[in-house]
């Protein structure tokens, strides 16, 4: 009775066993990689904006405070986005005919709002409140990155729930002094953990990880 298979089949079959395992493993790795990739999270992506606004320039060179534009950050869930008016307070005086700022002047003239591409967005079922984080000593840069070094603004973190929870579980690693909250560039001190522990007591920070903290 002739052999059904060529003898090479022995090797192939052995290899296929290993190969199958690797194939399955590879699939899961691929899923994970996509999930973490900027393509998916939009983190570290520089978006096309109507006006190439530079936080670096405005906060560092001009030394404008965050709250000058994001007015409601201390008393509302929403930090606030500056109306065209705010831009024009200065830009009616300086750079009055720069091409870059044409959309701003147009908006101010026509009353048509500027349409910015949203950098940091959360799903609708997540209720994040800026005011309380700021009050408890979580700085802008903790989530939004070193804005003072961003010529064009990008999303610094994945904003995945896992990432939120991490801070909510270990606030001492991130909390800073209230006076430092609005520093556009901030690097934690050597004794961050020690200071963090101290501030947690001082600011009465509770590690809130129950669902109602964000989901309603």
């Amino acid at each position, binding site marked *: 009775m002739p052999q059904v298979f060529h003898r090479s089949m022995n090797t192939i079959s052995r290899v296929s066993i290993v190969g199958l395992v690797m194939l399955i493993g590879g699939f899961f790795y691929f899923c994970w990689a996509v*999930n973490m990739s900027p393509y*998916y*999270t*939009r983190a570290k992506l520089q978006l096309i904006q109507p006006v190439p606004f530079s936080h670096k320039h405005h906060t560092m060179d001009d030394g404008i405070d965050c709250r000058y534009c994001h*007015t*409601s950050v201390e*008393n*509302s*869930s*929403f930090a*606030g*986005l*500056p*109306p*065209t*008016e705010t831009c024009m307070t200065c830009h009616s005086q300086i750079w009055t005919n720069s091409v870059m700022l044409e959309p701003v002047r147009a*908006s*101010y003239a026509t*009353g*048509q*709002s*500027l*349409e*910015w*591409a*949203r950098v940091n*967005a959360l*799903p*609708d*079922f997540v*209720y994040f*409140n800026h*005011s*309380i984080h700021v*009050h*408890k000593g979580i700085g802008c840069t903790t989530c939004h990155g070193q804005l003072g070094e961003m010529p064009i603004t990008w999303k610094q973190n994945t904003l995945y729930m896992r990432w939120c929870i991490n801070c909510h579980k270990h606030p001492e690693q991130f909390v800073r002094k209230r006076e430092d909250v609005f520093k556009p560039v901030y690097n934690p001190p050597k004794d961050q953990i020690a200071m963090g522990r101290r501030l947690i007591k001082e600011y*009465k920070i509770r590690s809130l990880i*129950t*669902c*109602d*903290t964000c*989901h*309603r």
Partner: protein
Amino acid sequence: MSDLKSQATSPDLVNINPEPDSARQRFWRSVEEREGTAAFLEAVAPEFPQGEVPKTALNRRDLLKLMGASAGLAGITACTKLPAQKIVPYVRQPEEFVPGIPLFFATAMPFNGVGRGLLVESHLGRPTKAEGNPGHPGSLGATDVFGQASVLTLYSPDRAQIPTHLGKVATWEEFIEDLGDHLVDERSSGGKGLRILTGTITSPTLADQIQGLLTDFPQAHWHQYEPCGRDAAREGARLAFGQYVTAVYRLDKADVVVSLDSDFMFGEPGSIRYARDFADCRRLTYPGATSNRLYAAESTPTITGSLADHRLQVRSSAVEALARALAAAVGVAGSGSAEPPAGVSADWLAGVVNDLKAHRGTGLVVTGDHQPPAVHALVHAINQALGNAGQTVVYTAPVEANAIDEMKSLKDLVAAMDAGQVRTLILMGVNPVYSAPADVPFLAAMQKVDFRVHLGLFVDETAAQCHWQVPEAHYLEAWGDVRAYDGTASVIQPLIAPIYNGKSALEMVAVLRGQTYASGHDLVRDYWQRQASGGHLNAGANFEDFWETSLNNGTIEGTTFPVKQVSASVGAIPAAPRPLASDAVELVLRPSTSLWDGSFAHNAWLLELPQPFTKLTWDNALLVSPGTAARLGFKREDMVKVQVDGREITAPVFILPGQTPNSITLHLGYGRTVAGGAGTGVGVNAYLIRTSATPWILTGVQFSKTGTTHHLVTTQNNHLIEQNGQLHEEESDAAFDRRVVRVGTLDDYRRNPAFAQDPPEVNTEAPSLYPNYYDYTKQQYSWGMSIDLNTCIGCNACIIACYAENNIAVVGKDEVDNGRDMQWIRVDTYFRGDLENPEAYNEVLLCQQCENAPCEYVCPVGATVHSPEGLNLMVYNRCVGTRYCSNNCPYKVRRFNFKLYSDFQTPSLFPLRNPDVTVRSRGVMEKCSYCLQRIMEAKIVAERESRSVRDGEVQTACQQTCPTRAIIFGNMNDPSSAVKKLKQQPRDYGLLRDLNTRPHTTYLARLKNPNPEIKG
């Protein structure tokens, strides 16, 4: 409309429900089986035009299906990333606007012409929620179902969106032009042919404007007609006092209240305030406390009657005899016989009379707006004889700007139109084609008018018959003013620019007067400035400040009417009518508890609202007592032909325990034929048999079975069972066996304050192998709720408030039939005793927030978990929809999105949604969250101010709107909090504590305060 048409409306109403299902098909089949005759087809044929309206609803339904499909498919590839979004700032940001922080504006809602003070929440210029205005005498912070539901009316997709001329789209300018042409020759004739029809008007400015108009056109006439108006009360006052006055009750001063077929806690101008005052007199915080006593003699169960300590069943037509007997007994001269009517026991009357006499000046007798003037006159006389007048009831000038006999006014108008004297007819905010009594041929007469203008929120039956339909501005869109039940005037300030460029009645009248571009704001402000300068107000030097304060407070200071000294006599009242034969059946028409006179027929929240006692949704029905039904051979859902002097309608039967034998009640406001996708054809139109002579209580009515049936849908089942000769309800009996409702008399309570408590072994916590996660008593907050069954009147306001606050979806009749209604809070009704004359008990049920919650440990994904503050959290975005939690919930307070119920299709509804609450999609469980969003907001504010949340700082939506303050919410770990104090009361008990669920919502047992003189 012919009877056949009205018959045909019933299939229609089933036809339009937002969800299709087998139930509907069942119904259709049965109709065709029984009515598949030429007659039937002929009958439905004329309905097809209206049939179109449902069509649109059907299409939307299909869209919803597609939506569900796409959602499903999207789901298959669930890992989709957030879409790229734009973010758009203002160009010039308004001063007070802070994105993320809502603003509240004081305004007032005209209801039946009378003002209800409101405080309306606005998110970036979108009114989303109406609350009561604590500073308003008619509200004290509470609202009723209509106030709560009015925001949905604002955003209703059915609203008239553009002026139409002969059904064709036109512009406001074209209208002004066309109107101008007609006014020219009117002007020449002094307005001989000009007639205006409005509802009851209490607005000083509007009245002033119309008066101005009447001076411009001396020959013109202003008619008023409110379908469920207060003619009887007005005429009654005129009979008793010889002049129009408005009676204002001071229930806070009344220890004994006798209601002669009155539902004074619902629908009357002062109802909300009355309910509060009444409830305040029966909050028994300690055994020594005293309670008021309510005697209710009524023909149909009302929310007022549900709190009665003695409820007497009496036919509405017999109430006059009862009133006369009462009057005679308290010594009113010339009131006629002292004989109580049949069915009223002598000791009942004696008991009431003695109780009243014992409480001179602190008693009060009231009667309903649907009782004839004579009864009102008698009641005035009784109150005077008992020295209650001036104490528990005071009289003021009529709150109506121009009090008249409206029925007569309407008839005059119809006569004039019929005689061809009317050339220009302006209808403002009224729908007489639908709501005029059957013997007043409004439609026919109206056809003879050559220029007909209708100003209305919706394209309704009347608009369809007018040359011009002009979209009216909702009260949240336009300036105006209105008087409350006691005369207090409020400025109606808009929260949003007219969405469809609607015009208010004020602006319409201005146009008639040639002030084409006068703004409502200026008109109102000018009027009050004139009042101030005229010295009618003590506005002080600076009117601007006064105006600002008035807007801010929601009331105009110094406008409350002074008390009038009047003396009542019963000389003028007509002779007593012959009593109705004891076996004759009367038909009582009452305003609907949901749609009122039909003007709310577009409001899906109200359509789906389970009506008190019947729990009926999406229908009205003939309410028949079990005995009478048996005698007439009627069963639930039988279609019965109702014939009154030559007119007839066909309506389904609903057997209601507690309904007075031989008295059948039918609610007005249903059976609309042009009421958009939701309201068209829902229920039966009772106006078709209403007569101007007896608009409320019809005698000589013939009832006959048609052989057809119509499916009625309720949210609470009741299986009637025969038990030792008495009719019982299986559910209710079980409820009392299981001590779900706990009732005692005041004496029981004084003897044993803890009569409602569970035995100690029930209250002790059962041991558990699981570690107790948090020690709830040690936390900063432990949220809890206490519901006082002794003051809850079951008015449903909490349900609608919850709709508005928590973005709750409407599911439609068929889905309610499938047991899929989405209301987070419900009012259960249980009957005790023989169902012919039972005691009815309401119990508000919402998530009990169990500390040891059965729903939590069964959820496979941890979508429902417990917070350290004792909240049972439901995380919609984590829920995968196994429904295990609901199965394991002993209270069954969880609601599941079996299909895609939330409307993601209708753009006009998007701005209505509360931005602080997730809009739930298909396949997700949801439930009461104690208004978590409000708790979190308050906590964040408190944290920012480095303090803890103050008692009363967080109010749940249901608590805030509750007219009787029966719901109290707060922090149980704060010993000084109101809720803690209530929970320490001996009357406090929890539902199903024997299951060791440790509910955070508990109840205060109901107490009855019976008069020992009266047996049974």
